[in-house]
């Protein structure tokens, strides 16, 4: 497993974390390259189904990040998101989906260094956990059995 490089997908909001990640770069702070950033208008727009699709398409970890409470560009998008993630997390915990693989965070446009830290800690945690074998196995099992009936 030593050569395992985790695939981490980050869903971030346009106004805070994306700008924060930009600052990380312009400040020349280095951080793990395992992360693929996907920019959203607001954390309120990040549907939980996107996370489901992320795991089923082979990600090992996920980061979701947006503006700190009270800083939302749209006033309340992140508060709505917070309620949603509370429910989602409880459901995932109940269904046995590993929440150690998902990081929720608030990173503002001024927190370039903090973004690097969030990514680095997530990547190293996922690296320790290894590839998400259980989920990948579930995704792949049906393909052989159902089709060829072999």
């Amino acid at each position: 497993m030593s050569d395992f490089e985790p695939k981490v997908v980050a869903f971030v909001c346009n106004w805070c974390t994306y700008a924060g990640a930009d600052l990380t770069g312009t400040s020349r702070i280095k951080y793990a390259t395992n992360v693929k950033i996907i920019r959203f208008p607001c954390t309120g727009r990040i549907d939980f189904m996107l996370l489901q699709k992320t795991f089923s398409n082979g990600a090992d970890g996920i980061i979701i990040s947006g503006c700190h409470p009270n800083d939302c560009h749209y006033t309340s998008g992140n508060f709505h998101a917070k309620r949603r993630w509370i429910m989602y997390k409880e459901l995932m915990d109940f269904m046995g989906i590993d929440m150690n693989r998902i990081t929720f965070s608030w990173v503002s446009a001024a927190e370039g260094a903090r973004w690097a830290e969030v990514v680095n800690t997530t990547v190293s945690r996922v690296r320790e956990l290894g590839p998400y074998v259980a989920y990948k196995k579930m995704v792949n099992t049906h393909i052989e059995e159902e089709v060829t009936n072999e």
Partner: protein
Amino acid sequence: METIKKLIRKQSLEKLFTTLSASRKVYAPVFAADKRVEYKYNPAFAEVTFEHIQSTLSVKNVVFPKVENLMYYTNNKVDSTITDIDLTKIPEVVLWGSHPCDNSAYDVLKSIFCWDIKDEFFAKRLEKLVVIGLACHQSDAYCFCTSVGLTPNSTKGSDILLSKTKSGDYIAEIFTEKGNAIVAASSDLFEQPNNEEIVIAEVKQTFNHEQVTEKLKTAFEHPFWVANSLRCIGCGACAYVCPTCACFDIQDETKGKEGRRYRSWDSCGFSLFTLHTSGHNPREVQSQRWRQRIMHKFSYMPDRNESLGCVGCGRCSRGCPVDMNISEQLQALQNI
């Protein structure tokens, strides 16, 4: 070929089962953890049940899987390609212990899949299937095979049919060469039949399917449909557990550039089934969809495919969350 009758002792069944399992896939009914009966590939003989009335799901999936690939493709815009399915890979399957109603369903499915152009996916699977049926020695209130022209020991569709005798041994009737080959390969397990009485379940006839078909010809506009489908919630459970329901959907599924086109079970009970892209839906409300289900099985199919679309297994009624009891409805239809 002429039917051959043999006797197989109950203690020899395990030998036959393990011999078959050694060389091919055997699909047999077992009790699941929650007491439902489900079919399983190559279970241990000890798990296999001979005492079940009906499995929750039918066994149509051996010839019509719930999902079946039709082709693979790569989508490269200009250079897209198609890869065909290798149907020669379809394995030989022995269906063990399925009841006469289920076995009769293969003829019905054949009348759907092979009435015009032949559907090779279905035809190949049927060709590779050997059916060792088990005549019913028990039944419940949902069974109505006798109302659709079958009996608890109908031989249709079986290559071999086992019937339980009073002492617990089985009489094996062999109808086809496929069945004969299985018996010949284990000839030491089969004896000459004795005259012991066999146990056959009793299933009361509740309606006359010919009369129902006749009634349905003029019943399209009858208020019966709305009145009797009010409690139908429009799920697809009845169609998915049915051994003869064969409506399907075709969809693409892609990852990156590679993908597959597959077909999967569908149900006329869903509103999406007939919804046009324009938003127009020919069957807009549930009563119309319920009518379609009954009409299709008991009027259109006898008319078009010359086969009744129902084998009286009663699964749809057992599985229905709101007790849309089909034999009760047909009984009522006969008298409208």
